[in-house]
């Protein structure tokens, strides 16, 4: 059964800290892994990773994929209160662009 597992389930840090969020997956015929950020409303797309070892970066956020070990990490440096959100990891299933989501990591950044 295809599944995506995220850890930790929740995390509280102080502004300025660096955090690492983890995502492991078992997806048949893996093609890519996606990260989303969800504040109070819609999940917003952050990254799509298809190649192992190539870091994707957007400002203070970066992510990398390890296809051999079947996991990905999302790093956030110099965290700000605006980074407080649920971070979701997802992998497309083979057929039809369906996604299987992890349960999410709840990040709270305290000022």
């Amino acid at each position: 059964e295809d599944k995506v597992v995220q850890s930790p389930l929740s995390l509280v840090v102080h502004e300025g800290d660096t955090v690492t969020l983890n995502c492991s997956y078992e997806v048949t015929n893996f093609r890519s892994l996606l990260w989303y950020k969800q504040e109070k409303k819609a999940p917003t797309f952050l990254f799509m990773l298809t190649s192992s070892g190539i870091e994707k970066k957007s400002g203070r956020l970066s992510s990398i994929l390890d296809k051999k070990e079947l996991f990905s990490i999302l790093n956030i440096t110099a965290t700000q209160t605006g980074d407080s959100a649920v971070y979701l990891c997802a992998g497309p299933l083979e057929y039809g662009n369906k996604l299987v989501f992890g349960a999410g990591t709840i990040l709270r950044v305290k000022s």
Partner: protein
Amino acid sequence: DVKVTQSSRYLVKRTGEKVFLECVQDMDHENMFWYRQDPGLGLRLIYFSYDVKMKEKGDIPEGYSVSREKKERFSLILESASTNQTSMYLCASSLNRDPRRSQPQHFGDGTRLSIL
């Protein structure tokens, strides 16, 4: 810019009512999806559609049906609402079903539905 619009942010209905949740996308996407999101369970797929009048069951279709009469609109129907269907419902769309291409899904803001 990608836009997925859900008709209501908050909705309160009574047990046994027939409930319609509407979703419209303006990107000419072929794929549309309905999820529900519950604490600790993440997003779970209810139904999805690859094309007009096409629909397929997701992981938790029981108690729900869908309708896609036009490409841009995908409706979720709760045939007879029950309290265990109280949840956040999210609609999403993605470009096309080409399995060779990985594509992100774009989400609406969600409808928080309470069944009393």
